[in-house]
């Protein structure tokens, strides 16, 4: 098929145009400049005649380019005429002519300073909204828990155990590995720097206190937020997208009781266990490095550790774990239920679930530090 062309001939105030070849989508790129060239404002031209007899094929692209030219001429005050339009294409031209082809203007954008201020304001308001939503979720959990306590048989035990396996049991290897490495790195750095003061032995105090009080629980919570919090958000979000949550509600079930409570209970059980395992792995890693890198024999390490830490040290870490689990669970579920129709929104909520839960876990850890300091633990 030959590419479309536009032959033009000017006779005084009259412009004769001939459409030839195929005016189709694949030739639109070359045809558009031709059309633009003849429609340039030209005060000499008073009338335009288009001869279509040599057109081979026309599709919507060709039809619209012609129609656009006709509209331009009309707006310039030229008389226009089309001759020899094949019968086959009459319907197509009518269809194209019927359209407005105009985009409604975009709503005016406020200037950039205003827009920045506005988005800052909106984000601040959103923080407050998030807090409200999370409080509502915590409240609904308490209500659901109360119902469960009154009628224990309604608790979704199977679902809870299933989630416990996914967030607890299957997380064990990766948690052990990461905390082992963190413990080893802490010990190595400690020995390297403490050695300058001949204080190698205090590495054991540092690793013991740091791991049991802070690092063990924090690392585990960050891992759980990234691993399980995100999956909670994605699961609930896609259930929300496919109206499964609405279906549950219309059947008379409370989504909080059916979907969210088993998930959060599983998390609250799993995180303390993971924290314990993680802390042990970190101490083991620290002990190994102290032995091989610092030359501290295991019996020395153990006896020094016994002096350095107490049950309280361990308790401080483990008490925090269920609260952090609750926080991660609530944030993940609130974000999941906020997913809208699109795949993009699912991704956005999953990201913000992980970011918010890690941030809030660290903030909560700060509050706990103040709390334990004031009660002297």
């Amino acid at each position, binding site marked *: 098929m030959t590419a479309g062309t536009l032959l033009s001939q000017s006779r005084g105030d009259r412009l004769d145009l001939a459409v030839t070849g195929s005016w189709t989508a694949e030739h639109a790129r070359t045809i558009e400049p031709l059309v633009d060239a003849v429609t340039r404002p030209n005060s000499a031209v008073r009338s335009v005649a288009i001869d279509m007899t040599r057109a081979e094929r026309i599709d919507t692209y060709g039809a619209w380019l012609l129609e656009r030219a006709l509209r331009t001429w009309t707006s310039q005050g030229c008389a226009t005429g089309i001759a020899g339009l094949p019968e086959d294409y009459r319907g197509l031209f009518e269809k194209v002519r019927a359209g407005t082809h105009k985009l409604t203007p975009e709503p005016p954008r406020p200037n950039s300073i205003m827009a920045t201020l506005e988005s800052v304001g909106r984000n601040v308001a959103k923080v407050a909204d998030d807090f409200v939503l999370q409080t509502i979720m915590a409240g609904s959990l308490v209500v659901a828990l109360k119902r469960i306590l009154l009628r224990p048989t309604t608790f979704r035990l199977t679902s809870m155990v299933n989630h416990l396996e996914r967030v607890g049991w299957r997380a064990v290897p990766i948690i052990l590995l990461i905390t082992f490495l963190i413990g080893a790195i802490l010990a190595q750095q400690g020995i390297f720097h403490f050695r300058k003061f001949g204080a190698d032995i205090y590495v054991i105090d540092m690793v013991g206190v740091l791991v049991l009080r802070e690092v063990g629980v924090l690392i585990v919570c960050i891992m759980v937020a990234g691993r399980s919090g995100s999956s909670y958000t994605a699961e609930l979000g896609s259930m929300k997208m496919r109206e499964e949550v609405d279906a549950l509600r219309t059947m008379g079930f409370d989504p909080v009781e059916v979907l969210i409570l088993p998930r959060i209970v599983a998390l609250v059980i799993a995180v303390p266990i993971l924290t314990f395992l993680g802390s042990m792995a970190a101490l083991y890693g620290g002990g190994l490095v102290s032995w091989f890198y610092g030359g501290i024999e295991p019996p020395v390490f153990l006896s020094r550790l016994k002096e350095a830490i107490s049950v309280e040290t361990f308790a401080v870490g483990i008490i925090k774990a269920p609260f952090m689990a609750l926080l991660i669970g609530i944030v993940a579920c609130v974000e999941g239920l906020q997913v809208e129709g699109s*795949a993009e929104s699912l991704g956005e909520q999953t990201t913000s679930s992980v970011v918010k839960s890690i941030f809030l876990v660290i903030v909560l850890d700060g509050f706990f530090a103040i709390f334990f300091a004031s009660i002297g633990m």
Partner: protein
Amino acid sequence: MAKTPAEAVIRVRDLVVELKAHRVLNGINLDVYRGEILGFVGASGAGKSVLLRTIIGLLPKQQGRIEVLGTDLDQADEDQRQAIERRWGILFQQGALFSSLTAGQNVEFPIVEYLDVSDRLMTEMAITKLEMVGLKPDVYRKYPSELSGGMIKRVALARALALDPEILFLDEPTSGLDPISAGDFDQLILTLQRTSNMAVFMVTHDLDSLHTICDRIAVLSEGQIGEAGTMATMLASQHPWLRAYFHGARARTGRQAVVES
């Protein structure tokens, strides 16, 4: 329309498709001609969508030959295949709009990928297509999640038509639409088909669509084309499934409407 000797734009020969060791299509022979609307019917689960997905290359076939626009898709290299894909448009059952793009960007998507046209023309064509399927230009900036089911189908049709295809595949275009919208949609497909002389391959369960817009109907039963022909042939057929399908309780109103007209 100028009537030229009908040219087969899709030619399927002895097609065999197996899914998980289950033979779904067993020796399909089917031609679709330029400028016709072919309605494709069959019981649920008979493999209508499988045939459609095999023709457009989403499912592998075990045996047989598929020619589209005179090109055997097995022999075609990457460039030839792409050239063919540029010349067909597909409307999926659920619309399959990209949810992260606006309706306008969805329609522009194939234009950006395949045609090197100016931004102005691209936007104008997207709006033209949206208007051709009966939508207002302000839909251009809306996201699929803000549109109703019927509007999603229309935007998806506009996207299928974006490159002015020669073949249009429709997978149950009227399912999930109310009877009035479904009727409008049928008329829309008919008008668009007549203005651009496309071949339309339509998988459908909608008896009204079959009655009002299909030039020819093909029936899939037991993995083969049981019968193919005009509505009159279908109504006269003695095939038991066809009798149940076209003469059943749900068929009556549609048939009466045709008889009365």
